[in-house]
């Protein structure tokens, strides 16, 4: 039954994506010159007003690969794809950093799923975090295996220069070590540490009543984290619990996550969206991701 249902979604999705490409091609063939000229000559338009403009090529344009025959035309457009995402999100998320309403979460989930090409949601199987939009703070590196230290932590000198200053947390991550030893550590395990976030799992509704079930659900659960102000997005896993409520922060990001999102701690900290990724076959790779 589950296979058949999943098949229904995949068949329909593939069919509609193919159909959408045809629509795009036809649209650009008929109006591409005008659209391109207009966008090229429209200087200094505000981010907030771009959403209507991007609608020229459709809200789901970024979900799809550009039509091959028109790729050259599209790449000429002077608007970075992330602008569209930023613009769309700005129409949905509130100005103040507060928990999103169900309706807002649904709209954000739709936009993110559309742009990144895989299902995301604030709630899966009746389990959700305390929020899906909040202030992110900086975490430290975590020991990946017994004996891991700052001298062994980085794969190359460049990463060491960029990320060593964050230091290593004195304790282990929420699930202990990521691997049994350096020799046995897989790339996936290494990436889990590199791209981990800490979430306030202990504040999730129902956590106290179903602790075991929730811990199992949260362990290395993939989440898409998006900086709505620059459109940068990264696929992460839940690797730790925190931060404490009194900090005023709502989640934490590894040094690599924070750097990519261009988020900082302290007075300059800012909000991110964080949504569960529905990836039962483990096909979505960890790390920075761009719109399709």
């Amino acid at each position, binding site marked *: 039954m589950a296979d058949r249902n999943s098949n229904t979604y995949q068949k329909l999705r593939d069919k509609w994506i193919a159909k959408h490409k045809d629509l795009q091609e036809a649209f650009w063939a008929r109006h591409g010159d005008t659209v391109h*000229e207009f966008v090229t000559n429209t200087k200094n338009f505000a981010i907030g*007003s771009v959403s209507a403009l991007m609608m020229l090529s459709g809200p789901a344009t970024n979900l799809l690969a550009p039509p091959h025959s028109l790729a050259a035309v599209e790449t000429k457009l002077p608007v970075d794809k992330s602008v569209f995402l930023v613009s769309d999100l700005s129409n949905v998320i509130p100005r103040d950093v507060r928990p999103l309403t169900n309706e807002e979460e649904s709209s954000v989930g*739709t936009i993110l799923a559309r742009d990144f090409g895989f299902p995301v*949601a604030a709630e899966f199987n009746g389990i959700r975090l305390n929020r899906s939009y909040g202030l992110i703070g900086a975490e430290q590196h975590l020991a990946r295996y017994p004996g891991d230290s700052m001298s062994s932590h980085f794969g190359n000198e460049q990463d060491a220069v960029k990320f060593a200053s964050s230091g290593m947390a004195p304790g282990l991550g929420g699930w202990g070590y990521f691997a049994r030893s350096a020799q046995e550590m897989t790339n996936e395990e290494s990436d889990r540490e590199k791209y981990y976030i800490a979430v306030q799992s202990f504040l999730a509704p129902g956590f106290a009543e179903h602790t075991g079930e929730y811990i199992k659900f949260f362990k290395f659960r993939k989440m898409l984290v998006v900086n709505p102000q620059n459109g940068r997005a990264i696929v992460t896993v839940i690797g730790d619990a925190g931060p404490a409520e009194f900090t005023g922060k709502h989640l934490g990001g590894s040094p690599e996550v924070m750097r990519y999102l261009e988020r900082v701690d302290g007075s300059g900290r800012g909000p991110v969206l964080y949504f569960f990724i529905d990836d039962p076959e483990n096909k979505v790779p960890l790390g920075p991701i761009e719109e399709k």
Partner: protein
Amino acid sequence: MVKHFYSFIVETDSLFLEIDSLAISTSEKEHLKSLAESHIHHSILDSIMSELSSDDKKLFLSHLNTKNHEKIWNFLHERIADVEEKIKEAAHKIKKELHKDIKEVIS
């Protein structure tokens, strides 16, 4: 769903209800709805722009960029006869195709 200038004359409930009736996850339903909405949007914009001259297309894009629905409608009424009907027709055509796709996939 995003509110477009044409949202009040283009009904999507029946399509979305049909998607909701599928035995798939909520996030999958939302994904399909997003795709369906984009199909409709493309079709409508294509139908409008096909009625406009090159210069008017640019003017339309300028109005679209302002998101001022009243201005968009004023402009369209001046340039395209029976514009509402043309929008409805474009939407109807693509929705019919999408309904058909759903039926084919689940049969």
